[in-house]
């Protein structure tokens, strides 16, 4: 259940960026090939936000699909798991080029506009 620790990390980083402003929405990018289960992040999020500027914030989770490049023939292959077989040459030597993201993309905070 490392998602709890990771969600705490997310809340801490976001609170630092918000500089005291109330956070309305947070957008995360989670690659499908990371060992992170998005539902577990959602599950932990509300608990971790309690008593912080993120309390009540909306969680926007963008899942980035997995993509690899074959090291033998350079074909691009979409992946569901962090491994696979090249559909063109059959090699398993794949370089993952997308899907390992684990990133806070942006925050929407309350700001007073005069």
């Amino acid at each position, binding site marked *: 259940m490392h998602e709890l620790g990771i969600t705490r990390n997310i809340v801490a980083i976001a609170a630092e960026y918000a500089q005291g402003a109330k956070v309305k929405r947070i957008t995360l990018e989670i690659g499908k090939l990371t060992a992170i289960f998005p539902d577990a992040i959602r599950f932990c999020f509300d608990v971790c936000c309690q008593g912080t500027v993120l309390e009540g914030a909306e969680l926007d989770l963008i899942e980035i699909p997995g993509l690899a490049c074959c090291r033998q023939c350079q074909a691009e292959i979409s992946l569901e798991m962090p491994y696979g077989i090249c559909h063109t040459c059959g090699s398993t030597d794949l370089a993952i080029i997308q899907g390992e993201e*684990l990133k806070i993309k942006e925050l929407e905070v309350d700001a007073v506009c005069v």
Partner: protein
Amino acid sequence: MCVTCGCSDDAQVTITNPQTDEHTHILSDGTVISHSHSHEHNGHSHTEEAPQIHAQIHGTTITVEQNILAKNDLLAAQNRGWFRGRNILALNLVSSPGSGKTTLLTRTIQDLKDRVVISVIEGDQATANDANRIKATGCKVVQINTGTGCHLDAEMVERGLQELNPPLDSIVAIENVGNLVCPALFDLGESAKVAILSVTEGDDKPIKYPHMFRASQVMIINKIDLLPYVEFDCDRCIEYARQVNPHLKIFQVSATTGEGLDAWYHWLGDFGF
């Protein structure tokens, strides 16, 4: 760097129109992206003709673009430099509970004691049992109890190293918490992750826990002396492991009988030990 799309000014062409404040990026694949960085007012306007004082709370977007594990990765990079500066080979031993990590470690320490100093950082949720087993071999050991934590992180290792104070030109073995999921995510600054699995487990573990076997450089199949009594197919296990990670270095050993350990020691020897 453009904070909206993350594109880099020096790597890609950026064309900015000062009138509209809109700029265009041409990405390496030829995609053209146009956007502005102007302040949006979500439906309310500021007009010059009728100045009025109004305060309205509206949403402002802060671009963060920060890796969630950035802090750990930074500390891991510091640890890596620390090891390199002292010519220390750091191994992160990962496995399920009960695969024989500690037995393999104590055996390795004893067999190589005339060749190299091995110091150990022991990670467990609770107890100092493993540290005591290692201590009995006469080598330096520090126990880290993670409590409810399911993995070691770079900061714990950094603190452990200060306590351990390993000598120059040696090996530091970091025995991670028995867990094949979380430790895959947390770089500790090691030279290599060594995944250990025993023949009393399923031979499909490499594809059941692909993140770990993909992140590892070495796989050790332990307890091969028990092969006659279990339904573990070594060839199938290796085939699965190669599917996940074709570059894995694989050793088949028995830490109890010593079978196959020479190849493992030979691999350690390639680092100058």
